């Protein structure tokens, strides 16, 4: 039990400390505490155990009911999933994990190496392609990322794959040119497969603080994201910022990353996530 005895004003300070340290943001916490104080003051129960349940209920409400399942193409075209996000947040590793996840479901998967910029980015994805037994479309280092995407879509259609996963280079949301490059990749994919990309997922590092919100807002503004992947949840960071993001943008978390291996990807559950905030 997190709190003992009668509900007190000290307790609300402890709640604030615990929740703020999950990175959900002081404004979210104050709103939540306000709602709870209101509710509990009208309730006859004075035991502190009631408080944790009240917080969890409130957090779930803040998270908005969002669909955490992966979209699939409605017609016999490959489902295109594009991974975007800030540098080092886990895009390439998440592409590998998703490929593995889909292969286990007996789906035909293809990968596209659209990070043509960073040193050994193509080699990194190539190794994952070999480990998962997936076909990788790649050009040389420094090639046009949109050209790779175009080739990959053509190959995916020709080979009749179920899923095409596109890995992109890390970039800051504040870099206008790099955001334009992503939009170009998206337009290129749309040329060949009009309703693609069916998913544009942003990776958010669980270690991120409040900056994850503008990251998601700007990426979403520019690309219309369909979901998030919350990575590195196997660390001590709680990733509470996704609560704030969901509260503001209603963007679902489709998966969580819980390690560096290809099996370390789990579907996101609002309830499990909220429970984990208190562990």
């Amino acid at each position, binding site marked *: 039990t997190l709190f003992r005895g009668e509900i007190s004003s000290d307790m609300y300070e402890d709640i604030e*400390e615990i929740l*703020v*340290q*999950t*990175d959900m*943001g*002081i*404004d979210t916490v104050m709103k939540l505490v306000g709602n709870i104080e209101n509710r509990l003051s009208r309730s006859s129960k004075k035991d502190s155990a009631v408080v944790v349940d009240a917080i969890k209920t409130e957090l779930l409400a803040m998270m908005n009911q969002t669909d955490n399942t992966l979209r699939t193409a409605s017609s016999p075209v490959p489902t295109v999933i594009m991974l975007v996000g*800030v*540098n*080092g*947040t*886990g895009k390439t590793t998440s592409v590998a994990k998703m490929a593995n996840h889909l292969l286990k479901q007996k789906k035909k998967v293809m990968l596209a190496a659209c990070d043509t*910029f*960073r*040193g*050994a980015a193509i*080699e*990194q994805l*190539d*190794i*994952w392609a070999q*480990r998962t037994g997936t076909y990788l479309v790649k050009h040389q280092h420094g090639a046009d990322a949109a050209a790779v995407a175009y080739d990959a879509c053509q190959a995916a259609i020709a080979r009749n794959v179920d899923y095409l996963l596109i890995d992109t280079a890390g970039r*800051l*949301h*504040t870099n206008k040119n790099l955001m334009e490059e992503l939009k170009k990749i998206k337009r290129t994919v749309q040329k060949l497969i009009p309703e693609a990309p069916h998913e544009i997922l942003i990776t958010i*590092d*669980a*270690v*991120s*603080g*409040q*900056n*994850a919100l*503008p*990251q998601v807002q700007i990426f979403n503004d520019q690309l219309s994201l369909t979901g998030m992947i919350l990575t*590195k949840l*196997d*660390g*001590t*960071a*709680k990733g509470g*910022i996704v609560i704030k993001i969901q509260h503001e943008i209603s963007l679902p978390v489709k998966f969580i990353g819980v390690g*560096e291996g290809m099996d370390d990807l789990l579907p996101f559950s609002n309830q499990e996530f909220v429970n984990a905030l208190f562990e």
Partner: protein
Amino acid sequence: SLSDKLTKVFRNLRGYGKLSESNIKDALREIKLALLEADVNYKVVKSFIDAVKEKSVGEEVLKSVTPGQQIVKIVHDEMVSLMGNKAEALQLRAKGNRIMIVGLQGSGKTTTAAKLAVHFRKMGHKPHLAALDIQRPAAIDQLVFLGKQNNIPVTFDKNDKKVVSIAKKALEHVKNSDCTVSLFDTAGRLHIDDQLMAELEALKDVIQPHEILFVADAMTGQDAVNSVSQFNERLGISGVILTKLDGDARGGAALSIRATTGCPIRYVGLGEKVSDIELFHPDRMVSRILG
């Protein structure tokens, strides 16, 4: 900005009298909110606010500035004294410098190792890089690529499955060369992974580094104190490098890290190019955190 908010708070306080606990209560709350929004750790904010309160209460309200500006100055000065007053660059000796680069996954270690190598060469040193990440796919390729791109020798071995043995090879190469500073890039790892933290301790034993630099992402939130204090406890960190400061993250983790470990922040990463590294300026960081 914080100073606008504080000016508002003190709108009703006249130009005479003292700053008291009651009239600065709202100001302290504004400061707390601002620091938390800038990602400074909750506990660090608490003790920081206490320090500001102590310095503010009893202060004469000056006639030349508004009470809001007065408090801002107290906050600013308190933060600068925490962060250090000036840049604290790495002090290298003429030769034989050994530097270990450590940190969580994806924070920017490999890129930073190359940046530091080039930076030291500009200062007249002969740098050397050692590829000790044998776990991440193509990590060795990445450092070898950066070495080639910037004409820096790299010790690596794709067939050696023991990082300690590769470290020894690197030390041997450096000994038989005219290199003056060797940088050891390590695999990203979690501070709670006991086996991998023990691996770093074993590497430290073999390398006997003069510097162990913790590379942290500027967008790190509340968790900054957890990771850096574990790394510091087990290894002893001599300095910190804050990366991706070219974004718009406020960088409050810098204050959390400094307050928790006392470790100086040496450099900041300002982009993906090898030249995108600068000395850390505490006063600039303070302005950034205070918005």
